């Protein structure tokens, strides 16, 4: 309850919740709200401005931009949320095990995980997609692999601190099994920095997915996604500027909200840390 009160008081949290809740709802409600089929072409109204029938106008094939935006949320969010979840699970597991094991084995695990950081992330993603194909499933795997080291590092350094604590020794001395200590005692105590990382990773993952889709290497047409719509709209910048405006606005707002959520969670969960704007 106290936590909730803190959340409501935090302006950044409130702003990002106001933006993110409708976007999350759109994943499920998008198809219900959408006035048109996102693939339906109306060749007599191509690149039209907004009208009662097409609230945000139409694209070069006469498809409803508003409907495409609503349908486009789903693949982006699927990639960002499921991918981040995968990275969270794999990274925390590896980090906690490495931190608790310590010594050579621990650092070996960490070095192996960190090899992923030798690549600029979008390059590794482009290579995986180029070799193993595009599509939502592959993008999820890419996001999970790319962001595992970030979670592993945080879990590892927190575990190193926590495992020396008396309550952990206590648990071990009464004969708790190692998995029990890891899951029951250590995991809850290293959770807050990991949660902050979750919202930052979601925003990076949205950025990555939309960037790949923009290059034509992400969600494949005709299924819409925001990055891909921006990529398609660029050729019509001088004809219908609103075509590129709407997906860009949605994308920027979502990323901004996810970033601010990270800042807000840092303020709330980690008050010892210095203010982060």
């Amino acid at each position: 309850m106290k936590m909730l009160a803190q959340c409501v008081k935090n302006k950044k949290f409130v702003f990002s919740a106001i933006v993110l809740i409708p976007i999350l709802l759109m994943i499920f409600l998008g198809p219900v709200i959408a006035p048109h089929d996102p693939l339906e072409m109306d060749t007599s109204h191509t690149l039209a401005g907004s009208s009662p029938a097409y609230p945000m106008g139409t694209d070069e094939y006469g498809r409803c931009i508003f409907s495409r935006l609503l349908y486009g949320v789903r693949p982006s969010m699927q990639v960002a949320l499921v991918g981040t979840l995968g990275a969270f699970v794999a990274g925390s597991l590896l980090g906690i095990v490495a931190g608790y094991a310590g010594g050579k084995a621990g650092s070996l695990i960490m070095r192996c995980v960190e090899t992923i950081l030798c690549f600029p992330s979008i390059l590794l993603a482009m290579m995986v997609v180029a070799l193993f194909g595009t599509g939502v499933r592959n993008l999820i795997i890419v996001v999970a692999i790319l962001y595992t080291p970030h979670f592993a590092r945080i879990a590892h350094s927190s575990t190193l601190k926590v495992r020396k604590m008396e309550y952990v020794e206590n648990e071990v001395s009464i004969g708790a099994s190692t998995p029990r200590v890891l899951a029951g005692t250590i995991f809850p105590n290293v959770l807050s920095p990991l949660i902050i990382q979750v919202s930052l990773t979601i925003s990076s993952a949205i950025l990555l997915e939309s960037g790949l889709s923009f290059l034509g290497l992400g969600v494949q047409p005709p299924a819409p996604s925001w990055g891909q719509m921006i990529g398609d709209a660029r050729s019509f910048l001088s004809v219908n500027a609103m075509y590129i405006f709407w997906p860009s606005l949605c994308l920027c707002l979502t990323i901004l909200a996810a970033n601010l959520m990270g800042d807000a969670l840092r303020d709330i969960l980690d008050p010892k840390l210095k203010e982060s704007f």
Partner: protein
Amino acid sequence: MTRFILKRLGISLIMLLAVSTIVFLMIHMMPGDPALMMLGGDSNPDPAAVAVLREELGLNKPLPVQYKDWVLGAVGGDLGHSYSEKIPVMQSIATRLPRTLELAGAAMLLACIIGLPLGVWSALRRGKTSDLVMTTGASLGTSIPVYVMGYIFIAVFCLDGFGLGFSMPSSGYMDISRSVGGHFTRLVLPALTLALGIAASIMRMTRSSMLDALSGESVRALRAKGLSESKVIIRHVIRNAFIPVVTIIGLQFGNLIGGTVLCETVFNWPGLSTLLVKAINQRDYPLIQGCILVMSSVFILANLVVDVLYGILDPRAR
């Protein structure tokens, strides 16, 4: 100091080896026969041509031998032959790498020129309206994807969307030997596009690092001994505050190289990234391999330089 530099150098070499191994293995983990895929995937290419290509790519040799050949070739500057461009991979990379490096370098320079002073200023004006405006701007700056920023600039400066009365070239590249002015007018927009997001991160880090340094005990002592405020800030606070900023600048190299991929596409900049995108679309595997290897090496090298620089600035980090 020498030991520290040698150690960092060793780590970078191991990273390079890891990168090359991963790049190599990934091509071989690819589902299907690379030779078949290169000759057109599903369209049943001529089996004789596939056999020739397999031989040429060395796919008939055992994997460790192929790996050894590839690494030795790469060290000697031979990254194989590009299929779409019909020239050695190294040759097409060599013409494009300097352009990407120029774009990235110009962007980093601009980002520092914009980010550092704004961060210092914002920290000194903490809590005032100008601070609020700048920190909000920085939050926005880190949230706008590079390519959206690029199209905003194109709409404003090239298509003259706001009636500024002039228009800049929106795409392409002009060699500096042809026209110095033409070269730089085509460089400004992509570099600025790439710089703004990074400038925002640098600004945020500078601000919080400045606030840290300002609250230090030594600052109080310096003020007490009667040093003027500007001397305290310039000689002492900024010096201490900039050390952690070096790390954040280093961490931004990944974003910078990732950003060039998108930025070059927006502005049709004929650099390494547009080459990579083209190679991916044409399934030119040797070229993909080469581009990724070279770009990752640049990234690792940049990190090495930053690490060493950090070690020089802050002896505790050695």
